[in-house]
């Protein structure tokens, strides 16, 4: 009845395993690439090619149109590394990242936690909290510029009312970066909030039910359930916030133009100035390259350290 075919036994285990597995793997690779094809093509044309071009240009002096004129080797880089102005840029960039990323994420997290409570009318608050997402950088910056205005802005009016010394928020090198950061945090909160709220809502309700029965405190739940379960989302938003912070441009252009005394001249703004105002495409490319590798490093670090701690279901 059972025709336990001798043939089965004869096929060596090894050969079945390798050929079968190889075929399956190849199949997977092909299918996988098929799904990725549109992305790969578009990335190649609109991201990798320009990036390589940028890398290439960073070794050249160029004319206004970005056409390379002279090969100068690493000159663009060495000059940058010596230039105090570039040092300020790096410092400003790092400071900006430090000001905006942690504060922004914590604020968004607080908002998301609040908005995750089951209360009447919570939908309204959720909408309000996410509303800055609907604002363009240009529009928000214009509004903030207005608020920071030392003569007519609301902040100075409030300071006047409280008899505080008035501070020229955007004109004092001490406060300018901070002020831009506050505006930036405000602008980014809506999006981070929405993402985090989504993450919170995806956590299985039963895990909280058990915690409630166990009678643990709110903070304990936050530490032991919410944050670990939210970790994929947090990981995502942290990574993205870092990258975005490194690449902030719009609000700086409108609020401070990199001033005063270059205190807000973050690298991206400096790249923009070099490439589009001063027409030093070579130098801009060199800065872009450096920026790219800086972010890359931070991100690799984050993936190395972070993704291990991230818990996926």
């Amino acid at each position: 009845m059972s025709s336990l075919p001798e043939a089965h036994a004869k096929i060596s285990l090894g050969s079945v395993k390798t050929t079968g597995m190889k075929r399956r793997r190849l199949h997977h690779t092909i299918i996988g690439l098929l799904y990725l094809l549109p992305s790969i093509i578009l990335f190649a044309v609109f991201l990798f090619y320009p990036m390589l071009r940028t890398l290439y240009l960073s070794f050249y002096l160029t004319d206004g149109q970005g056409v390379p004129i002279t090969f100068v080797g690493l000159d663009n880089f060495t000059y940058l590394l010596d230039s105090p102005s570039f040092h300020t840029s790096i410092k400003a960039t790092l400071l900006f990242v430090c000001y905006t990323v942690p504060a922004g994420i914590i604020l968004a997290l607080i908002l998301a936690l609040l908005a995750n409570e089951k209360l009447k009318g919570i939908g309204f608050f959720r909408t309000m909290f996410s509303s800055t997402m609907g604002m363009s950088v240009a529009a928000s910056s214009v509004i903030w510029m207005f608020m920071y205005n030392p003569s007519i802005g609301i902040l100075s009016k409030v300071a006047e009312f409280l008899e505080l010394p008035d501070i020229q928020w955007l004109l004092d090198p001490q406060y300018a970066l901070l002020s831009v950061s506050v505006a930036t945090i405000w602008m980014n909160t809506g999006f981070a909030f929405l993402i985090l709220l989504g993450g919170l809502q995806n956590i299985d309700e039963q895990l909280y039910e058990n915690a409630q029965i166990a009678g643990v405190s709110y903070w304990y739940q936050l530490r032991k359930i919410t944050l670990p379960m939210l970790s994929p989302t947090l990981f995502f938003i942290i990574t993205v916030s870092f990258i975005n912070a490194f690449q902030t441009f719009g609000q700086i252009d409108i609020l401070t133009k990199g001033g005063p005394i270059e205190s807000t001249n973050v690298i991206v703004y400096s790249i923009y100035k070099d490439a589009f105002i001063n027409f030093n495409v070579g130098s801009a490319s060199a800065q872009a390259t450096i920026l790219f590798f800086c972010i890359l490093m931070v991100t690799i670090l984050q993936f190395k350290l972070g993704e291990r701690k991230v818990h996926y279901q």
Partner: protein
Amino acid sequence: SSGTTSTDSKEAGDASKQDSPGKTEVVFWHAMSGELETALNEIAKEFNESQEEIEVKPIFQGTYEESLTKFNTVAGTEDAPTIMQVFEVGTKYMIDSGKIQPVQKFIDEDNYDTSQWEKNISNYYSVNGTQYSMPFNSSTPVVVYNKDAFKEAGLDPENAPMTYSELKEAAKKLTKKDGDKTTQYGFSILNYGWFFEELLASQGGLYVDQENGRKGDATKATYNDEKGLKVFSLISDMYKEGTYYNVGQNWDDMRAAFQSGKIAMYLDSSAGIRALVDNAPFEVGVSYLPVPDDAERQGVIIGGASVWMSNGISEEKQKGAWKFMKYLTTPEVQAKWHVKSGYFAINPAAYEEEMVKQEWEKYPQLKVTVDQLRETKANTATQGALISVFPESRQKVVTAMESLYQGMDPKKALDQAAEETNRALEMANKKKGK
């Protein structure tokens, strides 16, 4: 349907697709926004209606910097515009770019009489006797002051300070304090390189060597001489005395400060006067730029922008563009432009037009700006510097100005800026050398 301009621009857009057969299309890239764009569109419309062969399409392309970037990327291709508006500091860059056709060619061909143009304006755009572009929207700096505040401080509202020491005195009187807090400052200058350049030129100071770059490619900044230092010292001193207010880099912030009574005197562009008078809740006075006590007043450099013609496009289009340029400089058009925009008329004949006279009656302040320009002595200082790295150099000067507020020594700040300008110049020359 909702307004003249909106239908206009729509037509312009549509027309570009249809390409009405008989007409030569002249694309005009500009950076005029707000009211200015409205005025410009109107002029173009009237021109298009005035004749049959040419169709001018003004298209906004962002700020001066942005439009220049765009021009850069498309120059020499079919996407390039026929006419391009470029700000004054881009002049040298355009000349060097090789992508433009100097208008001198058409002036010569046409035997066009350029003497009808305001010499002090067209001078800026002519190098070694060649007129490169046609001046279009030009402005100069003036002192703007609050007449009411003057009265209150016991100053003569009709006579604004003309020298640095008078300025300092007046500023002192105008500065009002409420306890520790200053509620009204005497004077202010926007942190913008242009004002420094003007204050330098009005004492006859040069920005760079090679006769302000007009004899050859400049190699060195000269603005850190004692004339430049006088300007910087003025700012530094007044700031220390507490009579000077730092308004930052933003034009609108500066005007807001003035209009809200935070500052009593400041430097502004002639083009902004009219709106200022309209909106200010007090009487506004306008006066000439101050000079150091021992210096002889030289006048001002022209600011603003001019229009350029692309090369590498059909002769027909160039001719059409030239026709439009000529149209722009007619007294009637200039009168209109002056009244609507606040920019100078390139053709002084415009000032005789009825329209202008009426306007001046309403805004006597406008006349002051024109007078200042006309009294300007023509020399290399007031002709303005010609360097390709002007934008970069201006950034350096701005940084230097800002560091004054942090208590930096004026000389040191100025030297630092000059040094960095030198380096930029060096790089630019290096590129050009190859």
